[in-house]
Structure formats: structure tokens, C-alpha cells
């Protein structure tokens, strides 16, 4: 008797499963509304052929006593993302006459069936992380879309905004043994501690298995530098993060209107730069009190920084003070090279001549940039964002322009650059479900395809990253530069991570060459806004990005790309203090230039020789 019941119960469950699968497949059948036909002229990529994949096996009923309910004929399930996402969660504005379609990439095979999985993550948030009414970090257009495509839910375990906060929270999470499944931008020191304590999952094999070919191609191109920050004892413990290539490389920005007024030419050498800067500082053209004008902007971070940086000056002497460069068949610290002394002598002279603000060694980048914004500063070395829009508001006659960095006494020129693969590993905790790792990598693959193909037209979701005004134009105030604030993983989340570091440059080149070809009345709102640039700041930003890309050969990156060596950890603070104090006291004139020789001696004795030895050991092993 019981025998009978068991069999039929099993039958019943099998049938339920069958009908359910059938129902889901029917529901997922291509809807008519997904892809509209009002796409702009940009050529759509040929749709990837749907692989004739094996259908997810439906449980074959054993007992055929009960007649099977109508099962729809097994068909090849679509891999088209648009087939799975409901209209309101689709990015882009295909329905708007001035809108566009976002061509979502195909989903990977394994997402079919949408096995639900919740992955706990750490998220970075800041003022830019804003949502439409009712949305949160856990529930927003991206999370909804992802849920519909794959069944993945990313649940923030905790959030952070500043590096100090990240450090503290990671430390506490480690100590309380409550690490989330997936951790974004783990600070390198913390990464090391976690690896030593065995808290990270080895993902070497998972990466090899699941990362897309596109991604792997980029890694191959960049070689060793990709894995530096995620490797521990030869194995990989996280996904590498890449930013835009040459993102922080500077060019010379200058106030063309001022130079014209004073009949000065654009400086091409250091000496010319000096003269122009001094002339500006005396010119009273600035809007500072009493006509105060600052010649060349500088900040307390004198070696290199993200705005108003001085690295082109060091570079003109062939060095960047805090980097390790080739010397013979080994490496040497640039900060103790004789060229550094020459550069210091020059800077000391410049400081005396009034090229810089007298208190430049106290001010941060924001303050230095504010001088530019306030139409007070006439020259500065900054990456592509050097032309500030506020300057135009404070001084309508502003004309910003950029030029190549100047050459030094030996005709050399150079500036700071760094590998796009920076120290921000994305790690998984040890013991995490392997499916989690697989899914995260798959999401990254998918995002790379979405974001890094300019033809895909991904600009975010309406009313989230952009809004239309009453007359159907793009609301300028509401167009976010980085529309991917809530995405997950090293290729999309806050910080604008990349699969291919060349993406921005490639994108700009594509947009600037293709979009102007479209007739004005056929452009959609986004294209119109992109090309419409009355003040010209956007144009300058794009042109400078392209220019930087073309002149990237003058970038001087450090050859030592690893976590601090043993002696660095021990003596690094003291050596850093020694160097910072020596350099700044020479530049501001408190000590004579010959103090440099003293500094070199002390540096070596303090630990410099030992560190050099260790760095060279690393270099030989990792060439």
C-alpha cells in the first residue's frame, strides 16, 4: 500500500517539475516588444548565433500511468538577454523618439534556469551613489535586470566610502570571521594579511576556466603586471582591477587668453615654462585679491598626483622621485639619482622666483584646482580633466588649452604614468561556494561586453543615470559621467574599472569619428548632448585623452610592482619621512641644495641599501 503511494507521489512531483519547466520556457519565449526598430544609424553588431545547446534535461517521468500534461515542444532556449528582461528593467530609452536601444550581450549558457544565488559583497559608496525614488543599493535597475537574467542577487554585507573606513571594516570583518563572499577593492596590506591567514579562496583555476576570451586577450597583452596585486605564493587570489590606461598622465594646461594677452608663446622647454610662469605671476591677470595670479600650480604631493602635478618637471630630468627604474641590469631608486639633485636645484630656484604659490606644500589637490577654477592659476599639469568648467563661470573670457609637457635641459621629457592594473584586488573568501566564483566571473564577462563596445550604446537607465527634460532633451544636470555606480566587480563598479584599459580612448575615438556623421535631426538625445559642447570643456577633455594616448610613450612607470618588501615595511615610514623632509626643505629654500648628498647618505644607511637589494632580488625573479 505504502509502496503505491510513494511511487505516485514521486510521479506527481516529476510532473509538477515538468510542467513548471515547461511553463517557464513558454514564458521566456521571445516577446515582441523587446527590440524596437527605431535604432539610430549606428551599425548593430551581428547577433551571435544561438548555439544549438542541449536543452536543460527535463526529468523523464518513469511511470506513465498519469497522462502527461501538455508540454511545449523542446526548443533551443534563447541566450538573448533582451528576451529575459522585462521592459521596465531594460537600459536605454528605445521607446522615446529621441532615445536609443541598448544592445545587451548574450547571456552565458549557465544562466539559463536562473538558479537563484545570493552573493554577499562589500560595496563602495559615495555621493555619486544615488538612486531613484524607492531604489536602494540592493534593489535598483541593475540588480533587477541581473536578477531577471541570471537569478543572481548581490547582497551588500557592508559599505564603505573612504580608504580608512575600508581598512577598519576589513580588519574587523577578519577578526570577527565574518568575511562576505566577494570583496571589492581590498587594500593591498589587508590582502596580504588575509592571504597569510588563509582567508582567501584560490581562484587561479576558476579564472582560467570562466574568464571570457576578450578578457584573457587583454591580460595576455599586458603580461605580468596584471597579476602582481592578486598573486600570493604563485597562486591567484582575486580578480585584477584595471583602470583606464594612462588615466593619470598629465599634460600641460594653460590659459590661452592670458598667454595671448601677454604675447607669450606656449612653453616647450623648462626654461620657457619658468619664464611664462613668472610672467603670469607678475601679470595681475588673475582674479585673486589684488590681481593675485599663480604661475604654475603645485600641491603637497610633489612627486606625482592626480591634479596640478609636478611629475613632468621631474620627468624632464629623466626621473620620477618615488619610482624604481632600470640601472644596468637591475633597478635603482630614482630619488637618489644625481638627476634628482639637478631637478631639486631647479625647483628651489623656481620657488624663489615665485613660480609656485608660497604655501603649495600645504595644499591638497582640490585646493590647487580651485585656483584654476577661480581663474587665478594660469598653468598646471593635470590629466584630461584639467579644463575646469567653473573657470568659465568665474571669468567668461577663459580659454583653456593644452600642450605637450616641456623638455628638460637634455631634451628629455617625461611624466608619471602607472600600469592600469592597480592595487585593488577583488577577492573571494575561502570556502566560498564555487558557483559564486563562477557567477561573478560570468557577470564580469557580460559587463565587459556591454560596457566596452561603444556600439552597444549603454548609457544606463532612464531616470537613474539620465533624464529627459520637458522638451525631450537630455537633462544636463542629471547625466551622470559614470552611469555604473551600482555594478559589481572590477569591470564596472565604482571607480570605473575596465576589462580593457583602452576602452575610454577607443570609445572617444569611435564617438568622435562616427557620431558627427549622423545628421543633426537624426541624432538621439544622447548623441546630441555629447556633441553639443558650447563651452568646449568636453571637447578639451576628449582631445586631451586622445592626445595623452598618443603621447603615452613619454610616461615613466615604476619597474617595481609588488607589495612592499620586508625592509620597506620596517623602514619605509622613516625613509619616506627622510626623503619628504629633505626634498621639501630644499625646494622651499630652508636647506641648501647640497643637503641632497647628505640625504642620500642617510637614506642608504637607514635601509636604502637593504631595500635596493631586496627590490633587485624581486626584479631578477620576476623579469
Amino acid at each position, binding site marked *: 500500500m505504502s509502496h503505491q503511494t510513494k511511487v505516485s507521489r514521486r510521479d506527481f512531483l516529476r510532473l509538477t517539475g515538468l510542467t513548471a519547466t515547461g511553463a517557464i520556457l513558454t514564458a521566456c519565449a521571445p516577446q515582441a516588444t523587446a527590440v524596437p526598430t527605431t535604432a539610430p544609424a549606428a551599425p548593430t553588431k551581428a547577433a551571435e548565433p544561438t548555439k544549438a545547446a542541449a536543452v536543460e534535461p527535463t526529468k523523464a517521468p518513469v511511470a506513465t500511468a498519469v497522462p502527461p500534461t501538455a508540454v511545449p515542444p523542446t526548443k533551443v532556449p534563447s541566450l538573448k538577454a533582451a528576451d529575459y528582461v522585462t521592459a521596465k528593467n531594460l537600459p536605454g530609452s528605445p521607446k522615446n523618439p529621441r532615445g536609443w536601444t541598448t544592445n545587451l550581450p548574450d547571456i552565458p549558457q549557465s544562466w539559463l534556469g536562473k538558479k537563484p544565488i545570493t552573493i554577499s559583497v562589500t560595496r563602495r559608496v559615495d555621493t555619486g551613489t544615488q538612486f531613484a525614488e524607492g531604489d536602494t543599493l540592493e534593489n535598483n535597475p541593475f540588480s533587477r535586470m541581473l536578477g531577471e537574467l541570471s537569478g543572481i542577487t548581490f547582497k551588500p554585507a557592508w559599505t564603505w566610502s573612504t580608504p580608512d573606513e575600508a581598512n577598519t571594516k576589513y580588519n574587523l570583518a577578519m577578526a570577527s570571521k565574518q568575511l562576505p563572499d566577494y570583496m571589492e577593492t581590498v587594500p593591498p*596590506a589587508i590582502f596580504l594579511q588575509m592571504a597569510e591567514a588563509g582567508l582567501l579562496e584560490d581562484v587561479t583555476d576558476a579564472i582560467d576556466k570562466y574568464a571570457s576570451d576578450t578578457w584573457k586577450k587583454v591580460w595576455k597583452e599586458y603580461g605580468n603586471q596584471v597579476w602582481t596585486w592578486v598573486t600570493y605564493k604563485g597562486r591567484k587570489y582575486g580578480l585584477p582591477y584595471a583602470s583606464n590606461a594612462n588615466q593619470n598622465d598629465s599634460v600641460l594646461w594653460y590659459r590661452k587668453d592670458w598667454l595671448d594677452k601677454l604675447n607669450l608663446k606656449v612653453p616647450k622647454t623648462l626654461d620657457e615654462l619658468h619664464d611664462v610662469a613668472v610672467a603670469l605671476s607678475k601679470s595681475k591677470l588673475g582674479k*585673486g585679491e589684488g590681481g593675485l595670479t599663480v604661475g604654475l600650480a603645485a600641491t603637497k604631493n610633489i612627486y606625482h598626483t592626480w591634479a596640478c602635478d609636478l611629475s613632468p618637471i621631474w620627468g624632464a630630468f629623466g626621473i620620477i622621485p618615488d619610482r624604481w627604474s632600470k640601472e644596468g641590469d637591475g633597478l635603482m631608486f630614482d630619488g637618489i639619482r644625481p638627476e634628482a639633485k639637478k631637478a631639486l636645484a631647479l625647483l628651489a630656484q623656481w620657488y624663489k622666483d615665485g613660480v609656485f604659490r608660497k604655501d603649495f606644500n*600645504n595644499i591638497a589637490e582640490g*585646493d590647487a584646482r580651485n585656483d584654476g577654477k577661480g581663474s*587665478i592659476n594660469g598653468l598646471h599639469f593635470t590629466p584630461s580633466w584639467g579644463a575646469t568648467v567653473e573657470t568659465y563661470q568665474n571669468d567668461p573670457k577663459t580659454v583653456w588649452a593644452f600642450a605637450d609637457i616641456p623638455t628638460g635641459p637634455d631634451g628629455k621629457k617625461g611624466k608619471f604614468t602607472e600600469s592600469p592594473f592597480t592595487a585593488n584586488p577583488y577577492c573571494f573568501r575561502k570556502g566560498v561556494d564555487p558557483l559564486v566564483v563562477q557567477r561573478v566571473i560570468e557577470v564580469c564577462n557580460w559587463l565587459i561586453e556591454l560596457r566596452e563596445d561603444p556600439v552597444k550604446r549603454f548609457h544606463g537607465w532612464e531616470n537613474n543615470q539620465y533624464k529627459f527634460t520637458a522638451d525631450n532633451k537630455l537633462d544636463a544636470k542629471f547625466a551622470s559621467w559614470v552611469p555604473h555606480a551600482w555594478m559589481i566587480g572590477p569591470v564596472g563598479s565604482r571607480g570605473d574599472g575596465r576589462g580593457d584599459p583602452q576602452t575610454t580612448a577607443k570609445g572617444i575615438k569611435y564617438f568622435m569619428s562616427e557620431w558627427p556623421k549622423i545628421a543633426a535631426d537624426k541624432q538621439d538625445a544622447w548623441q546630441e548632448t555629447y556633441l553639443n559642447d558650447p563651452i568646449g570643456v568636453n571637447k578639451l577633455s576628449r582631445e586631451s585623452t586622445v592626445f595623452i594616448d598618443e603621447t603615452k610613450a613619454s610616461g615613466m612607470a615604476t619597474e617595481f610592482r609588488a607589495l612592499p618588501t620586508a625592509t620597506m615595511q620596517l623602514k619605509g*615610514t622613516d625613509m619616506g619621512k627622510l626623503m619628504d623632509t629633505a626634498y621639501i626643505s630644499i625646494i622651499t629654500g630652508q636647506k641648501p641644495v647640497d643637503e641632497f648628498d647628505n640625504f642620500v647618505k642617510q637614506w642608504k644607511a637607514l635601509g636604502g641599501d637593504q631595500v635596493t637589494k631586496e627590490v633587485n632580488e624581486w626584479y631578477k625573479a620576476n623579469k
Partner: protein
Amino acid sequence: MTTMQASNQTPRWERLRSYLSRSGSLYLMLIPAIIFLAIFHYYPMYGVVIAFQKFNPGLGFDKSPWVGWYNFEYLFAIPDLWDILRNTLVIAISKIVLLQVAALVLALALNEVRSIFFKRAIQITIYLPHFLSWVVLGGILIDMLGSRGLMSSIFRSFGFDPIMFLGSNETFVPTLVITNLWKEVGWSTIIFLAALTGIDPTLHEAAAIDGASRWQRILNVNIPGIASTIILITCLNLGGILNAGFEQILTLYSPAVYQTGDILDTYVYRAGLISAQYSLAGAIGLLKSVMGLILVVTAYWLADKFSGYRIY
């Protein structure tokens, strides 16, 4: 005679019982504090072992390797340690002393104001700077004291070359102390003002009748009247003798003034940027606690010996 005999013969538990019925409620009152302090202060104290380990939060206190006095040896081997310690002490002591004196003077001055409206208006304005954090205030000060700031304008209008207050070793520490004073003095008057309200007004009347001037009254009535509070505050502040104001200094300093401005906490902070420094920070924390304890106990003993005040 009989009573004494009787009390000698009163059994201990009888005396205990009567004592408890009188003072038992005192113990009861302390129970919440004892419990909370035990949970949140005493139980976590095992963390001081961090000073003797090479701590890795992933390994925790039980598995991190033991290194004995290594962290302290490392600390004392820092090349500039004596400079750093000197800076810490100089800055901390200057701040404590000057703040105390200024707050006292200000409180006494405020106390003499008769118009309630004026008094309250002044009070609320001088409290304001306390509410700003150094992160915020630092930015304002860097502007104000920088080459584009108000101070420079004033110098220039008088024909002088502006001084970079935050940029040179000679002026950095005085700037720190004075700006800290400006920020905190208003707030610090609160205690003294509260104490001043506790002075018996009849003493003032008596002094007035005796023909004492305002000055004399302040010197002879007010100050002695709050002497215990003054000593108390000084002693409590001494516990923080190695805290020279990390947030303020971090915001305002730069390599140009490391020589006089680098303190223990800022040094450890920079070290922590290179590699995690939980152990070193722990060692310094322990050092600070021990020093604080010594000072507090000494202050107590001194106050007791020389003025009979028992602060604790």
C-alpha cells in the same frame, strides 16, 4: 563603658546586617555600572596582548605569533623617536595648560557679566567652534592661513611679507596650540561656569561688604571656590598627555613641519599606510595608558599631599 563592651560583643553578622541596611543601597546603585564596565571595558582588555604579538586580524589573538617586546624595541629604534616624543609632549602640554588657563579666565570673565542676554549670546557663539570637526576646520584654516587667505591679506596690506604659519617649523606648533585654543576654550568654560554657580552667594556679599573690588573678589572668592574643580579637570586632562591632537595635526601638517609637528599618532598612521600596523599601534596605546595611569596617580597623590584634595 557598657556600650563599648556591648559593641565588642555585637556579633559580626549583626554589625554586617546593620551596615547593609544602611549602605546596601549604595552597592545596588553601582551594579549597572559594574556590569556595563565589565562587559565593554574589562572583558575587551585582553586586547592589550596585541602589543606583544605580530597581530593579523585574520589569525586573531589566539593564533597571531607572539613576539614579546619586539614592538617596543622597534618603537625605540625609530630614528626620530625622541623628536617625535618631544613633539608629542610639547604640543600636548602646551595645549592642556594654555587651554585650562584661558578657559578659566574666560569663565571668570563671563561670570562677571550681569546682563543675562549678553551672557547667553556670548556663550552660544563661543561654543560654536567646538562643534566643527578638524577635518572641516582644517580646510578652513589652511585657506585662511595660506598665501591666499585672510592672514596674508592683512600682512600684505601692512606692507609685510606674509608668514606661512603652517609651513615652517617655528610657527607650526604655536599655530596648532592657538587654533586649538580658539576651538575649545569656549566649550571648556562650561564646567567652570557650572562650578561657579555653586559658590555660596553669601560669600560674595560678605566680600562686597568688606569693600573688596571686583578683582579682589574674583581672586579671593571665585577662584578658591572652584579650586577643587580646577584641580580635578587638570588631573583628568593629564591622563591624555600623550594625545596631542591627532586629527588636527593630520589635517594641518605636511613634510615641511615634520620636525616639530610629527607626533606618535601621525607617525603610526603613515606607517599603517605602508603595511598594517596593528601591533605597533597597540604597543603605543599600551604605553599611553601606562603613562596616563602614572600621571593620574601622581597627580592624585600630589593634590592630596599639598592641598588635601582627594580627587578620586
